[in-house]
């Protein structure tokens, strides 16, 4: 082949490639659903695809739903809010025409709303909603401009999990996961929002930093928090991506202490692993979850039927006890006690509203801090990059 023709061939390939490159992303931009909300729930479409936290459609209550409605559930478990947002973004956003509902926590929900990945729902079609705890009826993490982008579901704290045989004396403070005492045996979620846990700890232990809100950190506060987490890294056995990974590490003895969700604790205790969990004295971060309707949901009727079903008191009680969290519907209280004596008090469903206020619920860090107008706060991209620095 002569040089000139080789160059011409290369140019043709590059041109063709560029043409393809410009065509592909253009095709990915989808249309947004109209604003007309449904006024009644139609017949189920026979299928329902969920992006969920593990056990959020546990067979103990999902099976009866499938029998009643004919909506066959397909689930995709996520291990972090990032995974949930990423899954909703696949296929051009809005769930890609594949997923119907996502059980987003507060640090994902607003990103999904402003990214047009989820659409408003008619809350009037969810009868149990009027019974909800007031704090979860129209919380700012799922209700924007009076529009409900889904229905609140369950909430709870992130806890400190430890092996009772290996960790003595029993820990009372988050300092246990930052001290070298359990070097190489610490288990931490692989989730940038974990920076808030460290910030909460510093808020109580280093008041000089002036941290007011673990999700609204100025540059100085943020750097101090990241440096604490970098010191923690050599202590960490593994940053877990899936709840099942952490369960395995505690079973196998690779981890003896770590940050967890109550779900792992309950699963380990059921498997007779000697573990306990607690909310340390510094307090805890937590989650408040919402079932949100994907913008391109292929089975909206089944999605509404599911939102209606999981907010009823009986199902709220079942899910609360399977995962170890607190319902948003206080009418679930007697049903929880029926399943497990004292469960309603154990999960603080009958506690005053001050209890839920004491938990620092996950939210997306944004540049505008609520507590100071003098400085900008670090945004979520900075959190993610810092997390890669810490763990990478």
């Amino acid at each position, binding site marked *: 082949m002569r040089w000139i023709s080789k160059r011409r061939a290369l140019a043709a*390939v*590059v041109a*063709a*490639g*560029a043409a*393809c*490159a410009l065509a*592909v*992303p253009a095709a990915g931009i989808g249309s947004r659903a109209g604003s007309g909300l449904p006024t009644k729930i139609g017949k189920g479409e026979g299928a329902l695809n969920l992006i969920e936290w593990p056990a959020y459609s546990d067979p103990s209550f999902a099976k009866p739903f499938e029998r009643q409605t004919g909506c066959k559930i397909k689930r995709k478990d996520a291990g972090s809010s*990032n*995974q949930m*947002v*990423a*899954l909703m*973004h*696949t296929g051009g*956003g809005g769930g890609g025409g594949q997923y119907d509902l996502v059980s987003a926590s507060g640090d994902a929900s*607003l*990103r*999904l709303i*402003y*990214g047009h990945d989820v659409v408003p729902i008619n809350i009037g079609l969810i009868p149990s909603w009027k019974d909800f705890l007031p704090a979860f009826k129209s919380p700012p993490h799922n209700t924007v401009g009076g529009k409900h982008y889904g229905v609140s579901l369950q909430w709870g704290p992130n806890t400190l999990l430890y092996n009772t045989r290996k960790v003595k004396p029993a820990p009372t403070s988050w300092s246990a996961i930052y001290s070298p005492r359990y070097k*190489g045996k610490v288990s*931490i979620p692989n989730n940038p929002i974990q920076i808030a846990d460290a910030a909460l700890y510093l808020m109580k232990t280093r008041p000089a930093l002036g941290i007011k809100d673990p999700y609204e950190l100025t540059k100085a506060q943020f750097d101090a928090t990241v440096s604490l987490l970098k010191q923690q*890294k*050599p202590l*960490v*056995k*593994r*940053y877990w*991506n899936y709840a099942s990974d952490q369960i*395995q*590490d505690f*079973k*196998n*003895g*690779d981890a003896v202490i770590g940050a967890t969700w109550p779900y792992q604790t309950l699963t380990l205790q059921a498997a007779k692993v000697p573990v306990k969990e607690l909310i340390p004295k510094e307090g805890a971060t937590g989650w408040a979850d919402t079932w949100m309707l994907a913008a391109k949901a292929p089975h909206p009727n089944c999605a509404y039927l599911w939102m209606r079903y999981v907010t009823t008191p009986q199902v709220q009680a079942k899910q609360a006890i399977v995962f170890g969290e607190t319902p948003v519907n206080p009418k679930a209280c007697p049903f929880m006690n029926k399943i497990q004596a004292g469960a309603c008090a154990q999960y603080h469903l009958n506690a005053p509203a001050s209890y839920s206020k004491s938990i620092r619920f996950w939210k*997306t860090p*944004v*540049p505008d801090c609520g507590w100071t107008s003098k400085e900008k706060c670090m*945004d*979520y*991209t900075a959190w*993610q*990059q810092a997390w*890669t*620095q810490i*763990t*990478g």
Partner: protein
Amino acid sequence: MAVDVAREAGLLRGARLRVSAAFWRRPWLRLAGLILPPVGAFCFVYVASLVVLLVSGFWAVDAFTSQTVHRWNLDNFRLVFSTADLTYWRIIGRTVAMAAAVTVTDAILALPLAFFAARIAGRRLRGAIFVLVLMPLWSSYLVRIYAWRTILPEQGILNWALNGLGLPDQHLAYTVWAMWIVFSYIWLPFMVLPVIAAFERVPDSYLEASMDLGARGWQTFRRVVWPLVLPGVVAGSIFTFSLTLGDFITPLLIGGSGSSMIGLTVEQNVGLNAPLAAALTTVPVAVMAAYLAAAKRLGAFEAL
């Protein structure tokens, strides 16, 4: 009716003949017909996706919604190749070092095995060795990785065996050492097979000539066998090196804190910061291009 069918068959046959005649008269048409589908597929499926990847590396992402914004900039490349923040350099260095270590390990393991299989073992034993080398490939890659997850943990099979022998516990699970072991195990067949082929191509007469001229065994290996086998080793190393370089499942399932690799970092960014992931992906592409250029010089492509 019968006449119609016969006429139709005749017409069809005529059309077919005319088409094949056209192809016969114009050889370039025949060539184009043969080569266009694979070239088209190559262009659209392979080259185009690479171009999309490269182009999207120059885009940005919305800090809040994590959606890609088509605003041209160099920030992603600046971040990846930053000299102030060495995170990505650390990950790139770890990945390349791991790929090199796995390649060397596999070469050291494969050489004696391949020598034995190709030159010493009888036909039946050689067949058995082939089957044993290929057997792991019959099961899924994931299954084999999960098998290692039952071997390596604190209360895993390995420690149980070590304790049985009166030896102390090892703490390999979820470390870079664990990844090194698992990678070396998983990619070994890809090294063994080309090396066996290379040993088989060494003529017996060369070895005899070497011995006749007074060379010892080691000398024969170093001066005669090794230069002839080297292209096979390099060919195998292309597989072990490139497969390790791009893998993200082993670091995800076997790696622990401080053992991220390029593939895993790309995977964890692709959903939320696709432009950054794209920028990072150019690194293994460049590393592999350099590696293949070097392999070509060593004659690896003749040995494949």
